[in-house]
């Protein structure tokens, strides 16, 4: 293994991703707008009763965050796949693990992190009790990172396909089940006045496992897609 040192390589990859994203600021806002739109739909669908909304708020917020992450993941590799950047990346001597991690990290910085930061706003709109806000933010902070990692596996496998959009949901949503259970569980526990620590610890465990393993699956997926394309 030779070539450029690893840390500068990772930061260069990350810088490139973020730079490209910041050239299109509206696309960064899209997941947040989606989040707000769907949050608006729920009171319209289930009624404006504050008590009912408060009861459903943890689940609603988590499901919407999950869908927003999934939608953003779908296009994660698309442009780089189409213009050949991905092929170049596969040919570099640096480990693919790191470049995959840089994609995921950029994806999380542009979707998961902003979602976490604005979530309290939407939580207040849905009448979530204020004591649950720290648990909501912490669970989203850890959970969206897992969602980004797992979602990127689906994105890598489907990037070469014409009709990837619905397929990635079918592939990935089953794997989102544990994150949803523990994420919304943490918020529900906190809303009832209990400590959300157990759920947050489990989410942290899932994140460690995902960081360790997911980039390998992403790398394998990218190799398959580029070979087939």
């Amino acid at each position: 293994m030779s070539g450029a040192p690893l840390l500068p390589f990772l930061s260069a990859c990350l810088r490139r991703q973020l730079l490209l994203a910041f050239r299109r600021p509206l696309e960064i806002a899209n997941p947040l707008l989606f989040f707000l739109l769907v949050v608006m739909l729920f009171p319209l669908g289930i009624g404006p009763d504050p008590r009912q909304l408060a009861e459903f708020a943890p689940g609603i917020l988590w499901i919407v965050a999950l869908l927003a992450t999934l939608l953003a993941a779908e296009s994660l590799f698309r442009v780089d796949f189409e213009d050949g950047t991905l092929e170049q990346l596969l040919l570099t001597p640096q480990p693919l693990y790191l470049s995959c991690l840089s994609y995921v990290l950029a994806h999380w910085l542009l979707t998961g992190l902003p979602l976490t930061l604005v979530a309290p706003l939407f939580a207040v709109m849905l009448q979530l009790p204020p004591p649950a806000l720290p648990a909501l933010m912490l669970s989203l902070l850890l959970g969206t990172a897992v969602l980004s990692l797992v979602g990127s596996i689906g994105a890598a496998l489907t990037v070469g396909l014409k009709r990837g959009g619905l397929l990635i949901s079918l592939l990935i949503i089953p794997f989102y089940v544990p994150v949803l259970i523990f994420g919304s569980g943490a918020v529900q526990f906190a809303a009832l006045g209990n400590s959300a620590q157990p759920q947050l610890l489990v989410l942290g465990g899932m994140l460690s496992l995902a960081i360790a393993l997911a980039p390998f699956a992403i790398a394998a997926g990218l190799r398959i897609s580029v070979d087939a394309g």
Partner: protein
Amino acid sequence: MWSFFHKLGSPPWLYAISGKILQWLLPVTLLLLAVGAVWGLLYAPADFRQGNSYRIIFVHVPASVVALAGYYVMATAGAISLIWKMKMADVAMRSCAPIGAALTFLALLSGAVWGKPTWGTWWIWDARVTSMLVLFFLYVGVISLYEAFDNEVAAARACAVLSLVGTVNIPIIYKSVDWWYSLHQPASIKFTEESSMHSDMLAPLLLMIVAFYCLFICSLLLYMRGEILRREGTTHWVRKLLLDAGDAHAV
């Protein structure tokens, strides 16, 4: 040992040997199914609380057990195909998915039919029901991903990666759904656990589980044979096979 492993990768050899295996496995499977079904449905004693409706267990439990095992067969085949690039492992993986999906569907359907008389409703978000539903989507995901690729080699590799990711995830999904269920649902529904079953009920159940495993192997081999013929359709040995079959038919 290794020569056997290499032979496994050869389509004509696998086609021939699977034919020989099926010759005796198919009758055995049918016999086991018939004996198990008649024993379970007619001769096993009725449950004192559920009456005769409990007899769905003789379809429901074997289907669920084998559906879950099928995923691991698929993932193992996927790993073999990724590591050794063995075409026949692709075929096995490809063939496992629809069979597993069908068994999972059967388990869900028979569970719903059983739920109506026992629980009073077709569907309950019970931990095991939910896990089976997730398993169904995992199977459907593999099938759809396979169909979405035009390139068969890439399709097989992508599905292998997906099923391996699923293998890591299945225990996590199961544990978290268990945890979710114990948190959300009152433990009001209790039905007979397998371990507390009387041996008169347990014996036909075990027989049916063995029968379903055999059925799975038979379907897998049949499906694989079809898939081999489809893939190798242009090769010499398949043409010869078909011509011979045509001659035999004509005679």
